[in-house]
């Protein structure tokens, strides 16, 4: 076991897979010699050579298309899109090509591509370096969508993603690359070394795709969250004293309906939290699913706490960010409803 932050854990996952499987290649902007703008691929080109860790032109559509071609030709490409906000030039290649190749060829062709991309705000990134577009991708059938909330899961889920024969879009909440962020930007940063999930095995292990995790057991209410918001929700739960069960969704698609709905059917109350905008957001899918499965057990309307339906504003990011106060208010409101 080692102490790792999320950057190191992700780096370790790729290191392990490059070592174990000669089919694994990394490609992306600045990922090679420089090691990535967030340092996630640091040292890997030096270790595995420039044919396995490739710097690419600045062309997200080209990166994803090339990864698809490589995947068809027997490699297991891991493509980095430098910011999730930059993924849209490659959207057609993801939606029309990567996600549907297996289907349209009735299983005769497939491309086992993993697309890693940092998402989320709270780093003064403004509207083009802060987005959380997971719902856009979860809506597309034929890809898996993953977002870890801690170093242990990050490594285990990334290894599972690279080993998966299906394409995976792997979102990395960059606000928690270096430590678990509780939503209060004025407190000193807490490093992952102080967190139990900063304990990460050096070698190979998997965290399964498609499984949510109960990160805090509770009786009165279920909070569904993922990524950075798991930690913010946890702080809000502590602040309010509500005996809430917190579930880290971890995989947006395919969704672990059973874990989520078993919990809500038991607690009878539910709050859904995500950083992305609200309208048509992933929370809508969670709420709809919970309502379908748990309606007769619900004691109160389900609440969503999300980013506002505006672009992520540079100057007002803490007014935009669905922080502890907004989550706490939703928790209280759901507890008070009868």
């Amino acid at each position, binding site marked *: 076991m080692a102490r790792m932050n999320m950057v190191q854990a992700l780096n370790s996952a790729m290191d392990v897979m490059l070592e174990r499987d000669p089919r694994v290649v990394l490609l992306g902007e600045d990922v090679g010699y420089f090691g990535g703008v967030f340092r996630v691929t640091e040292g890997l080109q030096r270790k595995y050579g420039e044919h396995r860790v490739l710097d690419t032109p600045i062309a997200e559509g*080209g990166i994803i*298309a090339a990864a698809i071609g490589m995947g068809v030709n027997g490699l297991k490409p891991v493509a980095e899109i430098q910011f999730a906000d930059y993924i849209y030039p490659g959207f057609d290649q993801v939606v029309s090509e990567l996600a549907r190749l297996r289907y349209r*060829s009735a299983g005769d062709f497939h491309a086992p591509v993993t697309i890693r991309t940092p998402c989320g705000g709270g780093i003064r990134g403004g509207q083009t370096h802060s987005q959380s577009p997971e719902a856009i991708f979860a809506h597309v059938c*034929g890809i898996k969508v993953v977002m870890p909330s801690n170093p242990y899961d990050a490594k285990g889920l990334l290894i599972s993603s690279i080993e998966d024969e299906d394409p995976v879009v792997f979102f990395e909440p960059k606000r928690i690359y270096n430590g678990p962020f509780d939503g209060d930007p004025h407190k000193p940063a807490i490093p992952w070394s102080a967190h139990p999930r900063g304990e990460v095995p050096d070698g190979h292990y998997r965290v399964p795709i498609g499984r949510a995790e109960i990160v805090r057991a509770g009786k009165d209410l279920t909070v569904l969250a993922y990524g950075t918001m798991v930690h913010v929700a946890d702080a809000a739960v502590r602040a309010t004293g509500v005996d809430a069960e917190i579930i880290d969704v971890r995989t947006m698609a395919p969704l672990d309906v059973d874990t989520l709905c078993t919990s809500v059917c038991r607690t009878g109350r539910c709050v859904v939290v995500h950083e992305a905008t609200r309208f048509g957001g992933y929370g809508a899918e969670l709420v709809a699913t919970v309502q379908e499965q748990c309606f007769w057990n619900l004691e109160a309307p389900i609440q969503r706490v999300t980013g506002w339906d505006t672009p992520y504003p540079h100057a007002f990011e803490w007014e935009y960010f669905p922080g502890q106060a907004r989550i706490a208010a939703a928790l209280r409101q759901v507890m008070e409803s009868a």
Partner: protein
Amino acid sequence: MTPRSRLHVPSPPARPGQEPDFSYLQISPAGAVPRPDVTAAARAIENLSVEMVRVLGEDHRALGPWNPHLEPAELQVGLRHMLLTRLFDDRMQKIQRQGRISFYIKSTGEEAVAVAQGMALKPGDMLFPSYRQQGLHVVRGHNLVELMCQCLSNTHDMCKGRQMPIMYHWAKGNIFSISGNLATQFPQAVGWAMAAAIKGEDNIAAGWIGEGSSAEADFHYAMTFAAVYQAPVILNLVNNQWAISTFQGFAGGEHKTFAQRGPGYGIPGIRVDGNDFLAVYAVTQWAAQRARQSGGPTLIEQVTYRAAAHSTSDDPSRYRPKEEWRAWPLGDPVTRLKDHLIALGEWSEERHRALHQELDAHVTACWKEAESYGTLTGGPSLDPLTMFEDVLRDMPPDLQRQREQLRALRSAAADGAPAAASVAKEG
């Protein structure tokens, strides 16, 4: 007058009712363009992107340094493949008009592109076609019955009823799946080629797009990645003059040749007479040899003409002169190869008629067999429950539930009762 900016909106030289006019087309005489060594530097051979490589002369003889010197038997095979492609297209169009398939796309007039290129490449080379290179399947020996079954979406459909007609693929034959979204295959071909080089394999990739879809960003991605990594790939741009109703000027063809885009990226661009079987074969062979020797990519512009409608849903009489095809200065690829073989004393009109008859009968027999596996409206049909397969490798729980929902609806409908209980349970 105060100067002001004005848009130039391209307009084709002739519209319906007007005389066809191909005076814009620069055509080099057969045999006139020098053939450089395959190791030549891209910047040293930029003339190839402006001139036009042609081998077949007016007297039907093969001329000049690009003559690939194919044996008569190989030329006969090429003629056979082109004619089969044409007859297959003609039949499928008729079948579509009878309402027995929903849609079709012919390659009439540009058969030499797929057939000559398919023949010049090795079986292990991976092909990433657009929807108008059915000749590649013919060359590689894909049973026409399978292609027809795909168009029929029947029980033998390789796509299991998931794709419109002509969106074929053939994994065993190393022919990639056709998307339907334009140009996406172009940078994928480059990625495939990069992987071949990473793995140290000898196979190369070839991709095809039309001049119209070269306006997509995917073209630029493909060219940039191919140039940057010197990927072993042949990038073919089939300039058939028309993208549905817009002529090649709308893709930027008025200012430079499409082949000239190659040198802009540091890639050799070769402009070739796309209706000259020998010339297409020769430039493909050149580009393939270059790619296999780590010489990197080549952009080939095949100058040809889309003699047919864009698809069965299109009516070209509304936007171009009906007689344009007859006025096309580069002729008909089938006739030109036939005439060449006759000039060589290796073919005759009688043999051609016999071949025509033989292939037509073959197409008829294939169609009969294909129909026996089901049609859109009758005969054996695919199980709709298969629509839930292959979304992911393993069917996730939500899809399993949806499949059961459809199964219940279908069995209830078969029993004449609504599947109320099951629908309510699922929501």
